[in-house]
């Protein structure tokens, strides 16, 4: 059953910043884009690499290893070498808690 999991305090992730958290041992990246939070699989679908260690420009995340790009709103691949989308998760804010539906 999907449930909302609190992963961070909202004010601990600055706009334009990403952090990496773990939910059920799965690394998940949480990004703050101008006050809107997005959550997605932290591991690039191309090769094992943490997307949270990459670059975030608006809603585009770039993998640091090979510069594959994804749209963090829907997971779509925007640039190769990745060919498989990343999974994205609904996010809600409860008070100061960032909660990811997982």
């Amino acid at each position, binding site marked *: 059953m999907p449930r909302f999991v609190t992963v961070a305090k909202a004010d601990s992730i600055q706009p334009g910043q990403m952090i990496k958290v773990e939910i059920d041992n799965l690394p998940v990246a949480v990004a703050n884009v101008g006050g809107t939070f997005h959550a997605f699989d932290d591991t690039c679908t191309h*090769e094992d*690499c943490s997307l949270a*260690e*990459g*670059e975030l420009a608006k809603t585009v995340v*770039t*993998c*640091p*290893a*090979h*510069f594959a790009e994804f749209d963090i709103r829907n997971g779509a691949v925007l640039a*190769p*070498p990745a*060919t498989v989308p990343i999974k994205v998760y609904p996010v809600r804010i409860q008070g100061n808690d960032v909660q990811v539906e997982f």
Partner: protein
Amino acid sequence: MPTIAIVGASLTGSSAAATLREEGFDGRVLLIGAEPQPPYDRPPLSKNYLRGGMPFEKTLLRPADFYRERDIELRLGATVVTVDPEKRALGLQDGERIEFDQLLIATGGRNRRFPIPGLDLPGVYDLRTVADADRIRDAIARGGRAVVVGMGFIGAEVAASMRQSGLEVVAVEPFKTPLYRALGEDIGRVVEGLHRDHGVEMILDDAVTAFEGAGKVERVVTRQGRRIECSLAVFGLGIEPVTELVAGTAVRVDNGIVVDDQCRTNVPSIFAAGDVANHFHPVCGRQMRVEHWQNGVKQGAAAARSMLGRGQAYDEVHWFWSDQFDANIQYAGFHAAWDQMVVRGSLAERKFLAFYLAEGRLESVVAINQGRDVRRALPIIKSRVTVDPARLEDPSVDLRTLAPVTA
């Protein structure tokens, strides 16, 4: 109906074909490749695929039905041997003739072979295609000791992969460090340390002069008289551009096929892109030929737009990566000559960026495990602005603040 023929069905050619359709071209698109496989990605061949960690299907650049859905005619196992620019026709090895209205040459390169005695012995391999990778994989599975001849990028990646697969690995490199010509001595030493720390035996300043063995390779002999016993050897001595299909035509060839900043050759209707293209680069202000993955993707797409009359100067900052053991090495830009190098981070910890400057401008950056900052440095290189080296060096300075703001 106009026909665009693309010779070379690899990264560049398939990128061009896909772009033609994305841009709305509704004529005939022919993608002709010498290898039997549909377009696949070569970087895994020296790494994950070579180690057996990736099935071939995962290396395919696009799903098999991509080409059919977009009406891109794939002609595989077909080698183009002649181009007739006047009659706008290609000649295939089997005698078939194909007419075109426009032609993109994306034939890439082939491995350089030097006249070293014993190079043709069984057990001596080189790596370019998936068939080559399969042969090396079989040899790795038999175990033993491997000699890697030449520690350029392919040699270094193969050395790492074979070490990771449990082989003893000895590398022989004529320069004083691995990757010396591409990255220089300082970074070359870092890569040398990386390989030594992972158990690769490194023989530098020495060159292989012969492969010896009864019926298959059993040892390599070096200029300094070393005799290194081995069960297999892999050489990586660079590539040469595949240009002979235009030999004797008006198409200008000089270290590849010479094109301008929109992938146009000196002959109307004939274009070139990727490893084979000696292109004019407006940021670097010179002709150059590169063998980078990213250039294959981007220049293939740029050539397609140029063929449709929507060309723009191709000014992508060149960039490439190489993964060896736990190191993700990246290089962006191009430094021919530089007068200052500053390091952000630590060479010893193999986590750094090395910035190369000429007259106060950032020419290039080499980094290990710092991909985010390489990405942030690209606009600085492209802008040609002068930068304060102290700010490049200071890890607390966000590199995004050093490039001019563009709209």
